[in-house]
């Protein structure tokens, strides 16, 4: 879970592993404060989010690109096509940081908006806004490229 959050957010396997290692080292330091396995899971997720965002800000190797600038594929992927997965990953990588993390928590961890708000430490309304706008943006870009459900 920890590595996966970092990987989907950072899109850099080495950096994601380093970030995941940092998270587990932090857990080791804070182990005495962990009360239950569920608490450990919640704690890990929260710290994974924070550390991933920190790592992205420190990196700043790839400036965020506007969705309009993402190159079109010559072949149009359709729903279920693995090429669509690759395109979606690239599009998600270009979302603003907080919106990107909200999407990862929603669709990787299957958290509801209230849980996402608690994990990220942001208002519920902001989470809903991030998800709705991101979905709308992704849908628009994909449809403009002729990508959609058959």
């Amino acid at each position, binding site marked *: 879970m920890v590595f996966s959050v970092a990987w989907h957010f950072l899109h850099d396997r080495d950096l994601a592993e380093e970030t995941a290692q940092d998270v587990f080292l932090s857990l080791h330091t804070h182990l005495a404060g962990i009360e239950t396995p569920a608490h450990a899971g919640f704690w890990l997720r929260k710290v994974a989010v924070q550390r991933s965002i920190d790592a992205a800000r420190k990196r700043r190797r790839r400036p965020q690109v506007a969705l309009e600038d993402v190159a079109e594929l010559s072949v149009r992927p359709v729903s279920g096509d693995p090429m*669509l997965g690759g395109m979606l990953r690239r599009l998600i990588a270009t979302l603003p940081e907080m919106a990107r993390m909200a999407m990862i928590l929603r*669709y990787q961890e299957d958290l509801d908006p209230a849980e996402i708000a608690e994990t990220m430490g942001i208002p519920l309304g902001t989470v809903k806004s991030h998800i709705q706008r991101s979905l709308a943006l992704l849908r628009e870009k994909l449809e403009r490229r002729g990508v959609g459900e058959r």
Partner: protein
Amino acid sequence: MDWLEQELAKTLSRKEPAAGFDGRVRARMHRRPRWLAIAATILVMMGAGEAWRQHEGQLAKEQVMTAMRIAGSKLNRVQMQLKGTEQ
């Protein structure tokens, strides 16, 4: 969930780290010699229920081994003394 959300769930499904990840975390923890705390930390990665079972199992095993060493050492002292007396 509409088709896009289904695709997102597929695309953003959990990815595993490269093999040996837990070993690399342990290597970074090597300065902290409390192996039980380290084992517990690593085991949290594997999932809550099974992790705690493993952790408790390792604790129980260590207690049994230490108990056997203590009882065995006392019996060994008896043995050594008896052998010395027989001679």
